[in-house]
């Protein structure tokens, strides 16, 4: 077997190759040019691939324009096989797990491998073709070696402004996808290394902040280029047959390990259901039903019986439901992330999400909030179902809302149009092991908040208050995490706001005797007014927490509170020392402690 660079195979293994090192000598380390695909070699390969994905992520973070990328980290970078199987990731955002392999796989199926040429970059944000929602853009770049397609580099991220009826492209009252922004089926943004200028012009003309789009798209493209270069160096060094076969073995390894973990769960059918308070268009709640079947070494998650898709944007796409189930299954099987995350982890998990239901929206139904605000609740629902099987491995409901706040306008200092998609931390649910985390962005997104300094530097809003909310975590043996509150002062003549908050009227549930967390709230105080009131009262919008394009003026203040986490276990079982600590640290007021923990809060005896 000859090596692509002309060297000869010297190792004893079928999958050994003697390649030309691009990495070894430049750093002065005596690095091997041969890779045996045994346990050690696979570990080396896994780390090499994972580091490529991590370097791609750094490129995105350091070169992007929008705070949602460089501060929020609302993106993931990946390497995939030539058939679209995930082989390595830097997954900042678990909500994208379902979309990442399927966007590539389904593009391959739709157009065939011959669609991809060297130097291409394909972009795709179609929620009906495997993406999470309209803002999420997946970019994929084929990696060729000696003229043969060997892999893909991928970058997926939330573009902060993609057009549609609301600045920030998050219309809480949208009734179809066309109000949500510019929809791109898989199309070539770069073709054989050259910008597809006609497509770029369409995109730039339809996004409100094209400069940000330009910067963020190029950050993604830069990440893909780095991924391509590093992966090519790896196959130059070890041989493409070794790397490709090694990646296949890693995927099989992960599948075996996850199946082994699933096999330890008790077989059975575990059902749970929940109501979601509204869809942004009507005030009617809708229902999600889920049965998780553990069958030997596989899991089937069946959403049959869930409500038909709703008019507003709380529907989610198929891959969002998929991500939520992966998330919950990984939480109960491999919370320490010891198994290499690749497509092998997805194989033992099947999801049934009827098309045309709230968990699998059909065209042209809207879905922007399904990703941010239904998905975390689907994770909670799956954990509530699995609590029947493994109560010691689950958590109560998280706040379950990304508390999406969108705003835009002309900046008074620059005269330039700006737009921002903002989210904030909420309370995580208490678990069998510990209290829930405070101020944590939803468990499906894993994003960071934006520092006040960055926020105020970029946008004409002053932060008057940013704090954890006392008494927001549900009481329990392990208390729910605290939510956050912010008060923002408008310092521009006008700013257009939209919001999609949830868990306002249906609070985050406790689990196994734990009490619910405190729901969310969104208020406004007009300049000169003494009181904060709901947006519905102030502006006559149908929902005070899901609305689009409300204009606030200089001196107005906006205040929100995100939802707190649900408590886990009976409050009677909480350690009195922890109750005292909570009171001392003002996490829990004395009044709430007396109400929820009774005698325990006063040092009394457990009844």
């Amino acid at each position, binding site marked *: 077997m000859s090596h692509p660079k002309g060297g000869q195979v010297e190792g004893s293994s079928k999958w050994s190759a003697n390649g030309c090192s691009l990495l070894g000598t430049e750093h002065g380390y005596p690095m091997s040019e041969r890779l045996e695909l045994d346990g050690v070699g696979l570990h080396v390969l896994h780390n090499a691939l994972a580091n490529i994905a991590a370097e791609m992520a750094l490129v995105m973070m350091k070169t992007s324009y929008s705070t949602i990328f460089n501060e929020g980290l609302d993106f993931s970078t990946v390497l995939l096989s030539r058939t679209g199987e995930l082989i390595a990731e830097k997954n900042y955002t678990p909500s994208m797990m379902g979309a990442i392999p399927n966007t590539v796989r*389904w*593009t391959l*199926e739709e157009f065939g491998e011959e669609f991809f040429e060297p130097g291409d970059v394909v972009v795709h944000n179609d929620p009906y073709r495997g993406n999470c929602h309209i803002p999420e853009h997946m970019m994929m770049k084929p990696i060729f070696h000696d003229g043969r397609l060997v892999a893909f580099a991928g970058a997926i991220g939330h573009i902060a402004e993609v057009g549609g009826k609301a600045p920030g492209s998050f219309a809480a009252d949208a009734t179809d996808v066309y109000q949500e922004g510019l929809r791109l089926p898989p199309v070539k943004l770069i073709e054989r290394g050259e910008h597809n200028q006609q497509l770029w012009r369409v995109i730039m003309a339809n996004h409100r902040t094209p400069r940000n789009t330009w910067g963020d798209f190029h950050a993604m493209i830069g990440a893909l280029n780095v991924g391509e270069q590093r992966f090519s160096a790896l196959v130059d060094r070890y041989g493409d047959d070794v790397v490709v076969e090694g990646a296949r073995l890693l995927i099989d390894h992960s599948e075996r390990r996850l199946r082994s973990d699933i096999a330890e769960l008790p077989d059975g059918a575990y059902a749970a259901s929940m109501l979601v308070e509204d869809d942004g268009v009507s005030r009617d709640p809708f229902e999600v039903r889920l049965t998780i079947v553990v069958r030997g070494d596989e899991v089937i998650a069946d959403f*049959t019986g869930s409500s038909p898709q709703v008019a507003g944007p709380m529907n989610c796409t*198929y891959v969002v439901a998929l991500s939520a189930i992966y998330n919950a299954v990984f939480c109960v099987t491999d919370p320490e992330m010891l198994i290499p995350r690749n497509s092998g982890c997805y194989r033992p998990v099947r999801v*049934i*999400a*009827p*098309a045309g239901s709230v968990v699998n929206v059909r065209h042209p139904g809207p879905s922007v909030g399904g990703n941010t605000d239904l998905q975390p609740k689907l994770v909670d629902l799956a954990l509530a179902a699995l609590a029947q099987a493994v109560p010691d491995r689950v958590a109560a409901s998280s706040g379950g809302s990304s508390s999406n706040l969108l705003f835009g306008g002309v900046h008074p200092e620059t005269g330039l149009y700006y737009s921002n998609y903002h989210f904030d931390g909420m309370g995580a649910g208490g678990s069998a092991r510990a209290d829930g985390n405070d101020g944590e962005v939803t468990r499906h997104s894993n994003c960071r908040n934006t520092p006040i300094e960055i926020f105020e530097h970029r946008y004409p809003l002053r932060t008057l208050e940013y704090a954890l909310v006392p008494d927001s975590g549900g009481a329990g043996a392990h208390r729910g995490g605290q939510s956050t509150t912010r008060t923002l002062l408008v310092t521009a003549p006008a700013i257009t706001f939209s919001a999609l908050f949830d868990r306002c009227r249906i609070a985050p549930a406790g689990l196994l005797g734990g009490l619910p967390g405190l729901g969310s709230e969104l208020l406004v105080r007009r300049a000169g007014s003494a009181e904060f009131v709901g947006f519905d009262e102030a502006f006559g919008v149908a929902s005070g927490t899901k609305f689009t394009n409300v204009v606030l003026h200089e001196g107005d203040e906006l205040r929100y509170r995100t939802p707190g986490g649900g408590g886990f276990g009976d409050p009677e079982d909480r350690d009195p020392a922890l109750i005292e600590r909570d009171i001392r640290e003002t996490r829990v007021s004395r009044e709430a402690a007396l109400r929820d923990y009774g005698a325990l809060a006063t040092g009394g005896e457990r009844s």
Partner: protein
Amino acid sequence: VTGAWVERPRVWSDTNVEHCPVCGCLIPRRAWRFVGETPLEVCTPACEELYETYYKPTHGALVDDHH
């Protein structure tokens, strides 16, 4: 599994999508066709197995409105 792949040709200007009647996921171009009580076209061979071992025993036989 008993089925076979069938193509669902479409013109390049058609951007509509179709869903698997069993699991709900996308069928981009080709479908896996097998004959249960009636012919069904699903996303993959694995979905035929899912239908026979889980879906039908749990929810009853499915009639694919694609036909």
